[in-house]
């Protein structure tokens, strides 16, 4: 059990910190959150800066154009960028975190050469077309159909919860190429396609959430033609292609968020001290308990990263370990913003306090990427070995 960083890791941190200190003051002001083109421009410009400085694709394998950094270096990178207040990965999320690694792992040399460099340099933005209105937690029940017509697929259907769809160049799309039947179980018959977002037949409609903003979109596909050459992996093998990367977790998924939550918690204490609610022992102890909670979640992050590190970083930690983290973190985050509401008192009803929209957003954490109910099943069956229910 060693929480000290190696000399190499400390050196990595020091150089990063130095670079961030120089780079961040030169950034333009943050764009209006409702102006999607401006957000894309801001996010990709930051990605370009990272690229030029050699920090792009830090966790990607070297042969995919990445730095092949260890999970610990990745943790340091995420921690330091968050501490420094650097921009988030934003519009580059899908490209850097999912579509890119999928192409790196399963794509042909041509596909890798075509798609990976512009992701790293921030020239191209990807979005994700997986979820459908009737295929939420049960992703494999997706219905968007792709019919082969010579060297293209003709795709029809709809997708939902697509971030950055308005400004993306590409969409990593899951489609059904063979209908479900007795012979074809639901996880078969799915194919992974890279769909150009400017293809005729693609309609994007902003999807407003309960926060009042449109962080997501719905996507309607009406006979969209996608070249067969854009298929990654075999036809009907898209489930496996996707899952390889979806469950590739090096324990770093929530590093920035945990760092941010710990900062928010200290800000809550300061605000309570300032407005007199610190005298409420019950509230004060709630904040104290959250201190224990987020300190533990930080240690659990280091634990998971260490596990990934030990396997050389290449295999990552089992996605199931991520379920343990996500279960606890999603609830802790909701408790944090409930505590924020108590610190604000009546002010918690005012959306001008950042903590109020953040509280609204926190409600999605026990739902998105697998509800807590489903995560409990995953933990019970895959880690604890309890029998499958049905």
């Amino acid at each position, binding site marked *: 059990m060693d929480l000290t960083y190696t000399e190499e890791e400390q050196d990595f941190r020091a150089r990063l910190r130095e670079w961030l200190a120089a780079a961040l003051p030169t950034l333009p002001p943050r764009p209006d959150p409702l102006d999607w083109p401006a957000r894309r421009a801001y996010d990709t410009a930051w990605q370009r800066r990272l690229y030029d400085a050699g920090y792009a694709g830090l966790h990607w394998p070297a042969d995919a154009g990445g730095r092949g950094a260890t999970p610990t270096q990745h943790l340091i990178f995420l921690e330091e960028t968050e501490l420094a207040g650097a921009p988030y990965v934003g519009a580059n999320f899908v490209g850097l975190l999912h579509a890119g690694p999928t192409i790196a792992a399963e794509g042909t040399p041509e596909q890798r050469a075509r798609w990976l460099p512009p992701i790293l340099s921030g020239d191209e933005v990807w979005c994700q077309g997986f979820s459908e209105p009737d295929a939420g937690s049960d992703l494999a*029940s997706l219905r968007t159909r792709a019919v082969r017509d010579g060297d293209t697929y003709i795709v029809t259907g709809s997708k939902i919860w697509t971030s950055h769809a308005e400004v993306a160049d590409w969409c990593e799309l899951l489609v059904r190429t063979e209908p479900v039947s007795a012979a074809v179980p639901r996880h078969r018959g799915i194919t992974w396609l890279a769909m150009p977002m400017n293809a005729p037949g693609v309609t994007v409609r902003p999807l*407003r959430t*309960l926060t009042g903003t449109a962080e997501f979109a719905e996507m309607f596909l009406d006979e969209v033609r996608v070249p067969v050459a854009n298929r990654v992996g075999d036809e009907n093998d898209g489930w496996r292609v996707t899952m390889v990367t979806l469950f590739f977790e090096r324990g770093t998924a929530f590093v920035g968020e945990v760092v941010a939550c710990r900062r928010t918690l200290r800000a809550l204490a300061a605000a309570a001290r300032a407005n007199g609610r610190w005298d409420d022992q019950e509230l004060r102890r709630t904040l104290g308990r959250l201190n224990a909670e987020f300190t533990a979640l930080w240690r659990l992050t280091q634990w998971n990263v260490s596990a990934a590190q030990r396997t050389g970083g290449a295999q990552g930690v089992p996605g199931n370990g991520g379920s343990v983290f996500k279960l606890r973190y999603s609830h802790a985050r909701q408790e944090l913003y409930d505590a924020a509401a108590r610190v604000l008192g*009546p002010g918690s009803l005012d*959306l001008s306090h950042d903590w109020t929209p953040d509280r609204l957003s926190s409600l999605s954490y026990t739902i998105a990427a697998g509800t807590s*109910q489903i995560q409990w099943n995953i933990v019970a069956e895959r880690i604890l070995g309890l029998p499958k229910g049905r």
Partner: protein
Amino acid sequence: MDFRLTGDQRALQAGVRALLEGRFGRERLRAAVGKPGPGPNPPLDRALWRELGDAGFFALRLPAKDGGVGLGLPEAVLAFEEAGRALLPGPLVATHLAAGTLPGAATGESVVTWVDGELVEWLDAADCVLGPGNAAGAVPVRSVDPLTPLHRVPAGADGARAAPAPGAACRSEAAVAALLTAAEQLGSAARTTEAAVQYAGEREQFGRSIGAFQAVKQLCAQMLVRTEVTRSAVYGAAVTGDPVEIAGAKLLADDAAVRNARDCLQVHGGMGFTWEADVHLHLKRAWVRAERWPTAGEAADVLAGALL
């Protein structure tokens, strides 16, 4: 002893429900909510307000000799429960309490609000602002609830917290306001339970309706339990009018409304997270009502003190 609703009470309940379904159904609700984002405060539907007045919603507890309906707290609680179910907007509690004191309140010709601590609901729409607090200089707030415009009174002007109603009967008026708020929360908790059960029966995942999954059943059952325990507390407090019992009813009702809305959202999954789903309206309104006196901490203090 017969704690169940009388025939008259059931008729009143059905009548208010029918009135609200007719005059403030889902379409009207969504039209009132509109699109998210900054913009002018939603206007109060004056015509509906007068219809509520005509139906006796505000004059319910006013003696018949004063032009009222001459009913009691239990009946008022039933009416406000329906208002909570329907997410009916407006300063209902303040206007109801002002009936008999302020001209036009009983009939719905006037819209009355009050200063409750730091916040004032529906200040722009109100003809009259009550309360020992002062709304002068109050500034608009970006309200979390799209159907409850809020103003904040300047720091230092606050002083109205434990007495949100005017006159000599301050304390008991505050208790009645708390009870009616609790009734609204009860209605909301019952509604989100029904919505969750309905969705769980319809939505299919993994080849069957999600309501067949034990994890979803557990959420729905817990929602029902919360609702029914709260119902007993609110109705009981309405019958006795005991201020400690009212504090308990408010405490349980705030908890039930907020937690049921969250569980309803959880059952709905991503679909519940959209602006188009109604569940967020219940949650946000429940948050607004939970900030009215007494909050959870204030209520617990009252309830603890009563144990000695």
